[in-house]
């Protein structure tokens, strides 16, 4: 494996890891403050117990998200020094604001975790809300920086130099809004379904069902609403990509030929040699409509782009199909959940709970797949149409060892966190009500 591949894998791996923890750390505070509010309103001790156990989850995920985020902020420079040398001053704005948001979050979390019974009830609850809001704000800001890599703006690129830098314009790049919206909804969907799944499993196993049903309801409400809204944001993203990064859209759909009235491919196996997709379901003219709002619009195919400016079509296509497939599934189940609120008998059926147990990891699989679409779809560019990834990589040889080290460390951490969460739930089930 050469240095570039090793660095790319390391970056991919650390991002895949960080995203999971960052999303949970960003979304769970909202579940926590809802439970907390219910405790304040009803004084039902089950809610207090739930709040306190979720708060431990928030603390653990926040810290792991924070340390892996610190690692990433260094890795940007350590792995891609040439990129950071030029991009740093341009996208520094979202990162410095993110630093500020993150700081606010850490301060608020300090108050929340240690403030029980020590600061006024209202202020204490409010610090929990701040944790959530600051978390979402930092998520949006980081995604904005990523958006800039897809839609570089806020500078003039003259003779290989980045001149007339405008950090505000870079922050508000054309991709920031669609990407951030899609990501925030994805985070809520993924975390909502994951947390709901964990509690559904406890209900399925008939452990402390009252508490876990309450927890399930809070988490899945967030997840289901986000899942139902997600297609709107997906549509905005697709239209945006069609305009800005047509080659990415072509790879997502594995479209080789430029066509008017292009069909939408669902599934299928990509044959890169023959440049075709077999075993797919074809919906006539749908892609043209989805991308441009016109059934007869022209969609550019991969063949119209130089060979060395195309991303890995198979990976992008499969990842995109996975994301959309799971997204649709979660949307349907989200609707089922709202129906179940009317049909109470469903809640007594163990199959209902099993469904949510099986869906627990799905949101995160879709979320990772979505990031693969964005990131692999941007290749070979690190800054779209400006700088290639291979020109940005560190000149230090031997990155493969660094990759091995990170993969070992993060694998251990993943196992450790899962183990820790199991212990949390076990102790929650074993302990009496407060």
């Amino acid at each position, binding site marked *: 494996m050469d240095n570039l591949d090793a660095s790319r894998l390391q970056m991919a791996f650390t991002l895949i890891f960080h995203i999971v923890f960052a999303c949970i750390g960003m979304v769970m505070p909202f579940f926590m403050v809802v439970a907390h509010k219910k405790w304040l309103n009803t004084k039902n001790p089950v809610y207090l117990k739930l709040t306190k156990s979720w708060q431990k989850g928030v603390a653990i995920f926040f810290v792991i998200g924070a340390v892996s985020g610190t690692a990433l902020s*260094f890795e940007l*420079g*350590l792995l891609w020094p040439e990129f950071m040398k030029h991009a740093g001053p341009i996208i520094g704005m979202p990162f*410095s604001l993110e630093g500020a948001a993150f700081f606010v979050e*850490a301060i608020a979390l*300090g*108050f929340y975790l240690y403030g029980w019974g020590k600061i006024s009830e209202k202020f204490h609850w409010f610090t929990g809300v701040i944790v959530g809001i600051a978390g979402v704000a930092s998520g949006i800001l980081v995604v904005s920086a990523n958006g800039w890599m897809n839609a570089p703006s806020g500078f003039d690129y003259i003779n290989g130099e980045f001149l007339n830098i405008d950090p505000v314009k870079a922050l508000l790049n054309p991709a920031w809004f669609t990407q951030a919206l899609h990501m925030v909804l994805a985070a809520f969907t993924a975390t909502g379904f994951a947390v709901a799944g964990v509690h559904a499993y406890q209900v399925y196993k008939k452990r402390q069902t009252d508490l876990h049903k309450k927890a399930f309801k809070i988490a899945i409400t967030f997840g289901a609403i986000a899942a139902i809204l997600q297609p709107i944001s997906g549509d905005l993203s697709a239209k945006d990509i069609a305009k800005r990064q047509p080659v990415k859209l072509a790879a997502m759909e594995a479209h080789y030929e430029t066509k008017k009235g292009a069909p939408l491919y669902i599934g299928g196996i990509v044959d890169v040699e023959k440049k075709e997709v077999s075993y797919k379901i074809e919906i006539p003219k749908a892609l043209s409509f989805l991308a441009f709002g016109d059934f007869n619009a022209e969609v550019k195919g991969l063949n119209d782009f130089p060979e060395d400016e195309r991303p890995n079509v198979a990976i992008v296509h499969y990842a995109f199909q996975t994301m959309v497939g799971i997204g649709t599934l979660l949307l349907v189940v989200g609707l089922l959940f709202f129906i179940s609120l009317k049909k109470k008998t469903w809640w007594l059926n163990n199959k209902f709970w099993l469904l949510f147990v099986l869906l627990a990891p799905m949101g995160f699989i879709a979320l990772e797949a979505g990031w693969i679409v964005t990131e692999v779809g941007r290749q070979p560019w690190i800054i779209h149409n400006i700088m290639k990834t291979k020109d940005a990589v560190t000149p230090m040889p031997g990155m493969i060892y660094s990759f091995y080290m990170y993969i070992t460390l993060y694998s251990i951490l993943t196992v450790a966190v899962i183990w820790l969460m199991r212990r949390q739930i076990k102790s929650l089930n074993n302990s009496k009500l407060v």
Partner: protein
Amino acid sequence: MLYVVLFFLMVSLLLYVILAGADFGAGIVELFSTKKSQQITKKTVYRVMGPVWEANHIWIIILVVILWVGFPEFYNVLTVYLHIPLTLVLLGITMRGVAFVFRHYDAYKDKSQILYDWMFRISSFLTPIFLGMTAGGMLSGELIITQDYELFTFYELFINPWFNAFSILIGLFFAALCTFLTSILLIGEAERDDRRIYVKKARNATIVVILLGFIVLSYGFIYDIIFATGFLKNPYTISLVLLSAFLIFPLLKSIKQARKIMSRSLAGLQVILILIAAMVTHFPYFIITSNDKISILETASTNEVTNVLGISLIIGGLIILPGLFHLFKSFKMIKILEK
């Protein structure tokens, strides 16, 4: 605006060293304690640092962001040539943060605590050493900046600059500074017998700091390391170090009189003086290579970028610093209420 940015860079660095330093020191104090006092230290550390430790470590992110936005070429040299020690620092920060949380938030307090404890202590000890070695790498004069990587061996370019006696000494010196800070901090949190333990630790840490400082400078002087010789020749530097040394007397007195705030402020001030001394020695040349010096000012971004960064930092500072102050203050009050 450039100087506003530099000011924030310096403040973040100092705050990171003092606050995170005291945090690292907590693990080091534990590492070098008897079994019984380890448990006491663990509890005290958690009580003192629990609410603030996360905020303490964000200063490094601010520091990195200021560097890459404001001084991209400078940051570029660090990330390319000091890749390995920086990676080791990251590894340490990750292990430490994780261990700190695991040991306090694990639902069961059983044998796994032993593992978390050791992870916490070892990484607390090694991380500041690697941080110091990174700083040593910047200052040891062993860095080779080149366009043609084929001309040199991997060892010459990527290992030797930070893995040499001078840098290792700086690493140890920084770890000792952290221990010094924490011991002083803990004195104020302990009662009677425990208090005596921390007083003793503080005394030992002070001796080690002075001794290591002396060794670093003599080594640098003997082997003619530019940073060290410059340090010894610069009148401002020497006066700052002397002032810091002189402060030991009021520090000892305030420890004896159990003046918590006074002793902490004095210890913090001493460390700040030493750091500022190191910074003014060659300002603005913060990287000294084998044949050149790199001025941080010359690597600054364009005016437009610096202006925006400066303004963001001022606004950010206005929002964050009062909140942070309130956090520190609140939990100090709570501790008094607990007693």
